[in-house]
């Protein structure tokens, strides 16, 4: 009985959220498509060079398939140790500095002037890519791991403080209110209501940053900030693709180990 008398429609389509006018929607879509085609046409592709590049790439793959760990082992080992040292020290230093900055950059805990100051530090740190900072610091402090350590610490501050501040701002307000209502001081509120809520996230982010710092340490080595990146760069410059392959495999292995252990540790602190 319901089927025949039912006056309700049987079809429903989700109305468009953006560009509700159908003509404009078509015009804009078509315009975007034309622009894309034209833009792709302006990219000049030298097929000769692509061919040569593929050949070099193939040699690289071959070197990668038969990695040579032994003949340059001393260089690789020294670079690796330097990178790991840089990674661990800069991550620890970065965490120590970014926790207070992160608390200061949380709107629900910090007064306005402190909030603005801490946000300014974070913005400054985040506005430059690691390589640019590394070039600057290498120019200031010379080649070597000190420049790398400072670069990574600086980059860690922007990353960790920002995400920690956001995590603190997302905290459950009722838990903070409840601790505040007992007559607790600001430090006690941070210690009893905020810290338990953000701790798992802080641990997770720190481990993630450790992972990023290791990978970055390989990149900034190329501009002279020491570490495994310098070794990799030298190997490629000398066309020793087998040694370069060995370096890449070691980097992948270490990132994998950090990845697995961090997910394990995160489960453990939850």
């Amino acid at each position: 009985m319901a089927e025949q008398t039912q006056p309700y429609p049987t079809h429903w389509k989700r109305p468009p959220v953006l560009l509700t006018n159908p003509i404009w929607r078509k015009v804009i879509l078509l315009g975007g498509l034309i622009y894309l085609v034209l833009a792709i046409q302006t990219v000049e592709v030298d097929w000769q060079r692509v061919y040569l590049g593929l050949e070099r790439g193939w040699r690289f793959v071959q070197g990668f398939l038969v990695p040579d760990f032994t003949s340059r082992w001393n260089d690789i080992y020294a670079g690796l140790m330097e990178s790991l040292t840089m990674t661990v020290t800069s991550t620890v230093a970065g965490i120590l500095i970014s926790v207070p900055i992160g608390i200061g950059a949380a709107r629900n805990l910090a007064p306005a002037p402190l909030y603005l100051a801490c946000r300014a530090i974070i913005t400054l740190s985040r506005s430059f890519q690691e390589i640019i900072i590394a070039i600057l610091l290498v120019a200031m402090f010379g080649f070597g791991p000190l420049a790398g350590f400072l670069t990574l610490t600086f980059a860690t501050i922007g990353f960790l403080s920002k995400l920690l501040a956001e995590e603190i701002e997302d905290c459950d307000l009722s838990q903070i209110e409840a601790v505040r209502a007992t007559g607790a001081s600001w430090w006690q509120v941070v210690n009893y209501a905020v810290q338990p809520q953000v701790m798992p996230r802080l641990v997770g982010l720190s481990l993630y940053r450790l992972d990023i710092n290791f990978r970055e340490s390989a990149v900034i080595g190329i501009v002279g900030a020491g570490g495994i990146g310098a070794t990799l760069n030298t190997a490629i410059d000398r066309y020793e693709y087998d040694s370069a392959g060995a370096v890449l495999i070691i980097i992948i292995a270490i990132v994998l180990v950090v990845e697995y252990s961090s997910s394990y540790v995160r489960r453990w602190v939850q």
Partner: protein
Amino acid sequence: MLKLDKLSKTYKTGDKALHNASFEVPAGQVVGLIGPSGAGKSTLIRCINRLVEPTRGSITLGTTELTGLNRRELRRERRRIGMIFQEYALVERLTVMENVLSGRLGYVSAWRSCFRKFSPDDITLAFSLLDRVGLAEHYNKRADALSGGQRQRVGIARALEQNPELLLVDEPTASLDPKTSRQIMRLIRTACQECNLPAIINIHDVMLAQQFADRIIGLRAGEVVFDGAPDSLTDRVLTTIYGDEDWTQLRGENSSQSASPETPAVDLVEAL
């Protein structure tokens, strides 16, 4: 004793949450604060310990005027006011013991509290309160491992750990089943009687309020529209507080007969 005089709160958005609320609560009296959602019940009790800053009016606890205290003085006065929250507001990742001991934070230095070095008296009190609310075994569990009723018991223990002179209770039974709600209300009530503690309890459930409060205050749109004994809460009064509704079902004597034919949904669920 607590005295409110012409307490008003206007939020930044222009909402008048509270308008000239004045009343006194003598020691040992349990006040049920009822009213529709948005009537200003939560605002009122949050103004008392100044989690919400009142716009005008005065609050006097004992001999201390609470409005206009600076931050340090306010912290000292907050120690005298225990608060029990809707949805418990326990710090979920801390243990039950830490949650109860956090009631002493106002008396302990930040350094000692950071390393959980509470005095033996505080710890003894915490254990005795946990025993009293029936959670003696659970002190080392994490708060989020407990059920709703158990969590609210921890919330009560935390408030009593302060040795308060006033108890503010915000919707203590909002997400609890009827039986647990009664147990929680009974617990709050006996605690108040034993310590001669005044309490203000925000509550939606009018029957619970009538059963456990000594006095009922009705709020509507930020104004006190009723203040009297629980028995004098007639249909007419309920209509002034909440607006037009058929109140006969709410009455205890009718509840048993009206429950069966009018709740087919419940029967259906049970049949499934």
